């Protein structure tokens, strides 16, 4: 079993942590690459540095992904540096409950200072303005150059220039907390100053500037926020746990004293509320859930204003909460998805919160380790109102929202609320997620406009919303824009008020060629509408596709592939993948990207050699013979000495791992006694870790296996991958699954399985590319879902109404088919069928006069699908139909 789906780690492929460190589990310990064990702060800093070095050595260490990981590492280290928090985390992530003991002595002043800096970054949720201010404060207290401090942190960000730090005019200020820190600072006596000698103070002047800036910042804040209660300074006693009179201005102990002003959207307050609720889970589940919901709601209202690192910190806190809750069988699904069930109202933040909930739910759905019950529970509730399908797992919060946004648009358009407020928030969410990616932003906005324009009361009532959306378009001429706008102009069911609002926004955008005479008056008749449409057509010049050499070559290849036969599933899947790539090349030709098309054609003409990978030989379990090492061991009876000798003899021999030997090694590794026998058995088992007999013996003995961390260690090695489960106190359920996964890989149910999987990957990759996705493709199952949703959103702006071919009818058919599909391959066929129908609809838009030819293609396709005797053949027929439609779209005279 070589499928990605099976092998995939609990985190998605796009998980940056996995990119740099390979698959890791959840939680700060796993992130830092250590087992959950008590650590003092020197230990923590040591592992942090090790991880940072590892990161720095990676070829992609200068990417944003690396930056994200770096921040996560700092944040994890900061959490572990706090003894109280560490204890809590230890309970959560396993390990013994021994209190960490600080090593003798308080550590060097440099180390202390460094910890202070890491804490500052960690507690600020990453390297942000807040962290900068904290580092600045710490430097000021120590008289250290800020630049040195920054280099000590190994942050890649440009060094802080203190003079540039300006208090941002934002309501969600965390500065009162800072003021408290300064009070604390003042409470500390001067005896700290000797430590200054240990650190370099060569840029004293700069630090002076920093201090000046800081003082002015704080003064400004205090002046600007008179209504905010000034928090009382925390007790002016040094934190005893640290062993020294620590000047650390920010330490977790003081935090509860700071009023957690959730409603202002302070990222740290929210983080604390969520971390706190995770802690409360241990004592009172209901109260914890309530506290979590408070933080969650506050996050929903404010996340679009947070910076990337703050966002990452809160999201990871929420994920941790979900893990902790699922371990205690507390169902978080309701709390997570509550905003999805709330009607979209006028209240500020309602769309923001809805999007957040969708993002979090998708993120959690990708955590297979969360447990089956928890995943199912979330999946059953994670549906955007009115959407055809439940949300899908997403590797990140943002990706989840990105995917949910088209459905959110439909939900807003379908709600009875016609105020522009939800649409303003929709655009805000769009911008937070897509940043400066204009093309997908436009596509989404066009889809939203289309949904709103087709809502029952799009006219006078809907016009303000239309105005908001139209103004958020870039108005860069594109196929999507042309199709959509012309469609709206042609569709007389769309009221003049709405079209007028669109033209006003278009003119205001001052896009090239558009002038103020193109504004359509609200009450204009069909002639005026047609006149403006004509002028737009001239400006945008919806020209025909040029027939070039490439498209001739393309057509020849299409004709060849369409008549190519394929008999077995592997050949059918490979052919389907080539058809899909050719369809993609056709798309490149159609959208005037000749270079991309050429590259794709080259790949198709010379079939990739990568298909020729040889599958591993099927596993074989030798039967025990008279030489079996297990016999000597049995003969040894109860004598420890004799048993150790028998094990040594096995070690020195080149005996095969037969089923008896494997069982003996597994049993002795699991619960052998005394310890030397157990250790020797484990060592020998590890030497034979890849033997199929060991794998089967472990599965057979599994139910009697003591659930200890040591056993988790070797079991995970037998399973062949270090799952996150390994570090949990209750690891056996996940452990058994990991073993079964491995066993399915080692023991194929048919000799063609591996080659079929490889062919499925090839088809999945073609779909992935067609969906416009980049990066490492997901499984074929994921890819076809992406393609379907991409086609759905590009076709959303369709105004032609062919009987049986409206987007809602296509979606309804997809739903109906999906409701009776159980296996994932069946579901892939269903999703592909929807793709065929979307493509047909697009072709009808492009070539209205070819309607009959298009219907012929789909009729033929559906007849062939109905009579196909395998799902794979159905897939091949689907790809054939899509390529035929592409041929039709590209054929001469394809001008609409």
């Amino acid at each position, binding site marked *: 079993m*070589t*499928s*990605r*789906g*099976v092998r995939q780690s609990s985190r998605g492929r796009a998980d940056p942590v996995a990119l740099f460190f390979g698959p890791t589990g959840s939680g700060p310990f796993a992130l830092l690459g250590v087992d959950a064990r008590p650590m003092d702060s020197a230990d923590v800093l040591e592992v942090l540095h090790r991880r940072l070095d590892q990161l720095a050595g990676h070829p992609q260490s200068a990417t944003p992904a690396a930056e994200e990981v770096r921040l996560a590492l700092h944040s994890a280290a900061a959490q572990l540096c706090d003894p109280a928090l560490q204890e809590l985390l230890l309970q959560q992530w396993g390990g013994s409950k021994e209190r960490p003991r600080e090593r003798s002595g308080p550590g060097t002043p440099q180390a202390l200072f460094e910890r202070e800096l890491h804490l500052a970054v960690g507690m600020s949720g990453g390297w942000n303005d807040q962290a900068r201010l904290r580092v600045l404060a710490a430097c000021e207290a120590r008289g250290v150059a800020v630049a040195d401090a920054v280099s000590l942190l190994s942050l890649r960000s440009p060094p802080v220039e203190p003079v540039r730090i300006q208090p941002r005019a934002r309501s969600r200020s965390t500065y009162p907390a800072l003021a408290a820190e300064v009070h604390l600072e003042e409470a500390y006596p001067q005896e700290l100053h000797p430590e200054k000698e240990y650190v370099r103070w060569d840029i004293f002047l700069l630090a002076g500037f920093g201090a000046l800036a800081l003082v002015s910042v704080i003064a400004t804040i205090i002046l600007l926020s008179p209504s905010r209660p000034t928090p009382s300074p925390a007790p002016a006693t040094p934190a005893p746990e640290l062993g020294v009179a620590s000047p650390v201005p920010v330490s977790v102990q003081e935090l509860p004293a700071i009023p957690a002003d959730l409603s202002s959207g302070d990222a740290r307050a929210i983080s604390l509320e969520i971390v706190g609720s995770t802690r409360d889970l241990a004592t009172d589940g209901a109260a914890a859930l309530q506290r979590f919901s408070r933080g969650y709601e506050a996050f929903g209202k404010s996340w679009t204003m947070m910076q990337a690192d703050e966002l990452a910190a809160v999201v990871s806190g929420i994920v941790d909460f979900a893990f902790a809750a699922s371990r205690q069988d507390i169902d978080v699904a309701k709390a997570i998805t509550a905003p999805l069930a709330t009607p979209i109202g006028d209240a500020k933040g309602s769309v923001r919160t809805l999007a957040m909930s969708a993002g979090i739910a998708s993120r959690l759905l990708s955590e*297979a380790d969360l447990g*089956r019950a928890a*995943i*199912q529970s979330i*999946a*059953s509730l994670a549906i955007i109102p009115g959407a055809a399908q439940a949300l899908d797992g997403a590797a990140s919060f943002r990706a989840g929202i990105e995917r949910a946004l088209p459905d959110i648009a439909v939900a807003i358009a379908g709600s009875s609320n016609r105020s522009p407020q939800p649409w303003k928030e929709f655009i805000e969410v769009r911008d937070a997620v897509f940043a400066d990616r204009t093309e997908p932003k436009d596509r989404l906005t066009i889809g939203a406009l289309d949904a709103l324009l087709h809502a029952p009361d799009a006219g006078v009532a809907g016009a303000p919303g239309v105005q908001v959306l139209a103004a958020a378009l870039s108005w860069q001429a594109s196929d999507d824009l042309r199709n959509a706008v012309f469609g709206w102009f042609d569709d007389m069911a769309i009221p003049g008020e709405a079209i007028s609002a669109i033209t006003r926004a278009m003119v205001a955008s001052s896009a090239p060629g558009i002038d103020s005479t193109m504004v359509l008056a609200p009450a204009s008749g069909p002639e005026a509408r047609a006149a403006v449409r004509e002028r737009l057509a001239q400006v945008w010049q919806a020209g025909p596709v040029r027939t070039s050499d490439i498209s001739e070559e393309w057509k020849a290849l299409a004709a060849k592939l369409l008549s190519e036969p394929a008999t077995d599933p592997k050949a059918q*899947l490979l052919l389907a993948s080539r058809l899909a790539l050719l369809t993609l090349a056709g798309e490149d030709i159609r959208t005037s990207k000749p270079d991309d098309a050429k590259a794709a054609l080259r790949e198709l003409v010379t079939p990739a050699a990568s298909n020729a990978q040889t599958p591993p030989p099927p596993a*074989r379990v030798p*039967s*025990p013979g008279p030489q079996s090492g*297990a016999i000597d061991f*049995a*003969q040894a*009876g109860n004598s420890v000495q004799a048993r150790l000798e028998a094990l040594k003899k096995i070690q020195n021999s080149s005996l095969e791992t037969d*089923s*008896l030997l494997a069982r003996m090694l597994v049993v002795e590794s699991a619960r052998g006694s005394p310890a030397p026998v157990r250790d020797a058995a484990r060592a020998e088992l590890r030497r034979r870790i890849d033997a199929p007999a060991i794998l089967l013996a472990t599965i057979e003995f*599994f*139910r009697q296996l003591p659930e200890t961390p040591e056993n988790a260690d070797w079991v995970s090695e037998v399973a062949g991958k270090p799952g996150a489960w390994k570090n949990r106190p209750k690891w056996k359920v996940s452990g*058994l699954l990991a073993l*079964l*996964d491995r*066993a*399915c890989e080692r*023991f*194929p*149910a*048919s000799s*063609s*399985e*591996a*080659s*079929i*999987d490889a062919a*499925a990957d090839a088809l999945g990759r073609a779909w992935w590319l067609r969906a416009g996705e980049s990066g490492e493709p997901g499984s*074929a*199952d994921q890819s076809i879902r992406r393609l379907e949703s991409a086609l759905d959103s590009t076709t959303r702006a369709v105004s032609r109404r062919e009987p049986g071919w409206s987007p809602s009818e296509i979606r309804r*058919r997809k739903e*109906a*088919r999906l*409701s*009776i599909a*159980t*296996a*994932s391959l*069946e*579901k892939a066929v*269903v999703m592909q*069928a929807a793709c065929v129908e979307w493509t047909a609809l697009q072709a009808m838009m492009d070539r209205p006069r070819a309607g009959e030819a298009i219907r012929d293609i789909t009729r033929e396709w559906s007849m062939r699908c*109905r*009579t*196909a*005797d*395998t799902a*794979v*053949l159905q897939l091949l027929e689907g790809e054939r139909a899509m390529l035929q439609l592409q041929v039709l779209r590209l054929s001469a005279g394809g001008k609409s």
Partner: protein
Amino acid sequence: MIRLAFFLSCVCSYLSLGADPAMPAQSAGPPTREALTLSLDPEEQRKLLQIDSRRPQEYLELAEDLLDRPDSQPRLELARDLLVRAIEYGRVLPENRRVASSAAAALATLCRRPSDQLWLRAIATVLQPGDAPLPQVSAKPLANQAAEAKASMVLTLIRAGEGTEVTELLRDDAVRAILVRHESELSADGTLTVTDIENEAKKWPCPECSNAGIITPPKSQHAAAKICPVCAGNPGLKLSPESLGAQLRLQRRLQSDAPESWGSQLATQTAPPARDPDPASVAIVFGVDARKSVWREGVWISPADAKPENP
């Protein structure tokens, strides 16, 4: 055309109803007049002779009457034919789609396989006006998850030769039902049955070595330990590598919803072709010639060939 025939014979053979599951719908042939006159009351007889494809609700109503007293195979078969026709004639006209929908729902109750029931229920929903929610494959309840874990355990244990425990676990009806439902996945060729497993369980543990695999004589005898001659050191159910692979896949399926590779689904034949809940395909699948809409002399005939009948 060959493919179509193959497909139809496949579908029909598992869409059979009533007491004889092996009887394909097509080969059943029209019920004899005698059989029907025996089981139809005069009122039903009268209705049957008057039905007309322009009024699909009459087919549905008569089928419902027949199903109120489902006491013979011919009655059931006639009911099925009536329902298929109600769907076929009802699906075309918007005002009759509701009739077609009810007929599809009724037809679903006559099917045995859950997948067929689901297919017909989906068709019933498709035919309903508006956006009625589609039937859903419901999430497994927790109790079922526990039983599935036990069913998976049965397979591990029988391979290890733990016969006593297997017998014990199979006494649980829920566990047994799960394995029966997945019987075709118990081995590569689908021939291993739950009864086979039960019989195998009676042979184990090994009577000679109690599954130790090795006979160790007491110290006093100074004899060497040796492989058990009865089980050859390998107690438990023996499987071909492919069947072992199939069982492991079933175990994984029982214990996790995580996606499975296509190769694995194809190798274990757990991914049938996707079906389209298209109302137009019902008559084809059931092998009903919908052009023959009237009933005369115990057979369905086309209205053009029929003389009007006055009861």
